[in-house]
């Protein structure tokens, strides 16, 4: 018989209670159990970075943790970024302004990675942004516009 564990997780300020199998991956819990499909699942072995979320303010791969481990944790996903239905977060706005995405599959993970970077480094160098993004794969853009968008967002957020 499958054993299910009761967990309580805060995501984007809302509290969710679920019962999960021990083997339920955190990314699958967020998507399938909570219904937040913004977190994308790419490689499922910690290489592509598409599933990056914030866990207690730190960027983590949600495919490399079990949902049960997040019991009691505060998570943040791409759905929490926009302050209102008709207003984008400066990072999102910068991405649209400079065409930093094409298919968009990798974008949520990249936004979460950059959000974590900009939280503790208000004025990151180009090298710091590149270093931070080394764990996120994008197959469309060639990264150049992502870098530009990150710099633009940092400038706007500093204003």
């Amino acid at each position, binding site marked *: 018989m499958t054993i299910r564990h009761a967990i309580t997780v805060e995501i984007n300020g809302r509290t969710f209670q679920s019962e999960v199998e*021990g083997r339920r991956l955190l990314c699958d819990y967020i998507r399938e159990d909570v219904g937040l499909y913004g977190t994308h699942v790419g490689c499922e*072995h910690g290489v592509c970075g598409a599933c990056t979320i914030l866990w207690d303010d*730190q960027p*983590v*791969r949600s495919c490399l943790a079990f949902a049960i481990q997040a019991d009691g944790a505060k998570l943040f996903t791409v759905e929490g970024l926009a302050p209102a239905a008709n207003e984008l977060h400066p990072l999102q706005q910068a991405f649209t302004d400079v065409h930093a995405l094409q298919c968009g599959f990798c974008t949520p993970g990249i936004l979460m990675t950059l959000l974590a970077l900009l939280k503790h480094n208000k004025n990151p160098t180009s090298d710091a942004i*590149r270093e931070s993004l*080394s764990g996120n794969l994008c197959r469309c853009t060639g990264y150049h516009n992502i870098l530009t968008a990150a710099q633009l967002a940092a400038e706007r957020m500093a204003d």
Partner: protein
Amino acid sequence: MKPPPFEYYAPSTLDEALRLLRDLGPDARPLAGGQSLVPMMNFRLVRPRYVIDLNRIPNFGYVRLNSDVLQIGAMTRHREVEHSEVIKNQWPLLAEVMKHVAHVQIRSRGTIGGSLSHADPSAELPAAIAALEGTLILRSHSGTRRLRPHEYFMGALTTAAEPDELLVEIQLPTLPAGTSAAFDELSRRRGDFAIVGVATVVKCNAVAEITFARLTFTGVGEKYFRAHDAEEYLVGRKATSSVIAEAARMATSTLDPPSDIHASSNYRRQTAEVVAERVMARAIGQQGVMV
């Protein structure tokens, strides 16, 4: 691409975890940061029947200086090691190495104990701990063992830890005053496992003679390699480019690294020599000696 079912345990004390390891036997796997174990489970390369999650054990992650020994708890996240002020100041080799350990998202969650337990032949940390002559503290329900790196690392993904033992702490002795250190690696992309990596710690005296030398490699075999011959050769000699080149040649001439899709054995060996020269020149440069 989903992990197979397992029974999940989340002990709240180390003693409870050690009891579980004893009682559940070799079908149990401790789960630290999960950055290697979970992908292996997702691929179903490993199928532990029991998973013992160490993340609920309080005070299992720490960096503290106890007289002249640095103690790092096994569950200390890579990020915490990377940003520790005491490590930056007194064990700069380790701080530099951490920047090469995977990516920021992995370092948020991955732990020093997990990486050293996984013992990947291309991992940076074993070479760093060997260069710093660290001690690995293993505990089981029945006792404690203290192992040196050459006793602990046995081969690819293999350590001397028994199934009921857990790596609980890493200890680093203080280095002689005035040493400098450098690490570098060649990898296909930033954050990838190293094709080869080299760590060094050196010290020169006022007349530019080398008085202290450590030189270790990763990615060149089943486990890290410490170049004792090259270290002995360096000590007492003037820090010159030809001495460094000879030390790098000595260290790598007998290596027989594996060939794989990323690099041939010969390429790895030659690259190891080049990277060794570079890191030694950089560390010696920090001593104010230009080579």
